[in-house]
């Protein structure tokens, strides 16, 4: 038994209808037995499909892709800084000037701003994790490969901070490796980047995000999150105790 309105009902169930259209579909669904049955079956099918059958790219493919991109990158010599500087016009010159600026270590204020921005940007875009894994055996090598930095990565699930994955981000123009932790509904980002001799900012709260900076070995670290003060301190203690 199929109702003539079944395609509209399906669009409604898939969240494709808005406003008056959605209202009309909803009213129809209240009285049409065929569409109600369709709704129930579609929901069951969605649940089943979503739970069971999504593949993820194997690590071997990730490695192969990195090698492929390396070859692509090597094939075409990239126009250098001096090419841009010598051409002297427009955006290229601007970019060259910017690149020069980036060679200087950032100020403490820039760092604080940059780390909070990166955290907030990741949260707003929903792209907080590029490699999802609760295993440091997966996250650490991925970060080493993609960020060129290999900070210690540990799961603190026993203490309430579950390792969720990692991503590559940018802090004040430099590449940073980020380990991502979940604490209840909150996310804690642990940034690591190569120490360029920059002075580190004092602990701060910016736009509701706490941040804390420290140095260890030849790397700078920053923890950023909107968890409460007690949880944040607990996380920092754990993160600072990490060893290779």
């Amino acid at each position, binding site marked *: 038994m199929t109702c003539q309105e*079944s*395609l509209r009902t*399906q*669009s409604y169930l*898939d969240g*494709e209808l808005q406003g008056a259209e959605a209202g009309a579909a909803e009213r129809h669904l209240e009285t049409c037995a065929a569409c109600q049955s369709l709704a129930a*079956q*579609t929901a*069951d*099918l*969605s649940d*089943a*499909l*979503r*739970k*069971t*059958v*999504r*593949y*993820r*790219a*194997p690590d*071997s*493919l*990730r490695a*192969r*892709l990195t090698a*492929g*991109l390396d070859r*692509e*990158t090597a094939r075409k010599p*990239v126009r250098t800084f001096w090419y841009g500087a010598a051409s002297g016009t427009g955006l290229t010159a601007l970019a060259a000037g910017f690149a020069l600026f980036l060679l200087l270590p950032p100020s403490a204020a820039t760092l604080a701003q940059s780390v909070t921005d990166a955290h907030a940007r990741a949260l707003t875009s929903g*792209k907080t*994790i*590029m490699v999802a894994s609760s295993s440091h055996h997966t996250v650490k090598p991925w970060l080493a490969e*993609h960020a*060129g930095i290999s900070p210690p990565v540990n799961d603190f699930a026993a203490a309430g901070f579950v390792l969720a994955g990692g991503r*590559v981000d940018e802090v004040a123009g430099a*590449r940073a490796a980020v380990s991502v932790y979940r604490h209840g509904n909150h996310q804690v980002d642990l940034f690591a980047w190569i120490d360029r001799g920059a002075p580190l900012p004092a602990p701060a709260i910016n736009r509701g995000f706490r941040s804390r900076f420290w140095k260890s070995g030849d790397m700078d670290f920053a923890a950023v999150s909107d968890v409460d003060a007690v949880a944040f301190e607990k996380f920092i203690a754990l993160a600072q105790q990490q060893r290779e």
Partner: protein
Amino acid sequence: MDDRRRRFEAQALPHLDAAYNLARWLSRSPADADDIVQDAMLRAFRAFDGFRGGDAKAWILTIVRNCWRSAGTAQKRRGHISLEEQNLIADDNPEGSAIQAGTRRKLDALVADLPEEFREVLILREMEDLSYREIAEITGTPIGTVMSRLARARAIVRETAKDCL
């Protein structure tokens, strides 16, 4: 690593699993899926200067689908290998996993056996959560066709999977 590569990786790599999932379901073979995704990602990288922001996921998946189609009929005729479970994203809820193993195998087989035009819309909608408009873009079909294929795909799976849903 140069800036272009870094920007590309930041845009494209978050969608590598989606790319692989689509390639895997289209080709129904792990080896072919690897080749298709590798090819697609390198093509995307070469074309990256033409990508002006917007929906990176739909962009990548469009290229994956094109690579699959241009990979030719040889692959398609090869027949599919039974789907392994090792690459499936682990269920967040371990209590349900024993019960689900049987259901999962049946559903795998059902979806894998769907005709290609139904299989792809079902994967894009149910696994990748894409909108009709994005699916229409990726598959190069009108939205109305996406809707009717999706309805048909769901009906086929519902009908054949009655006992395991």
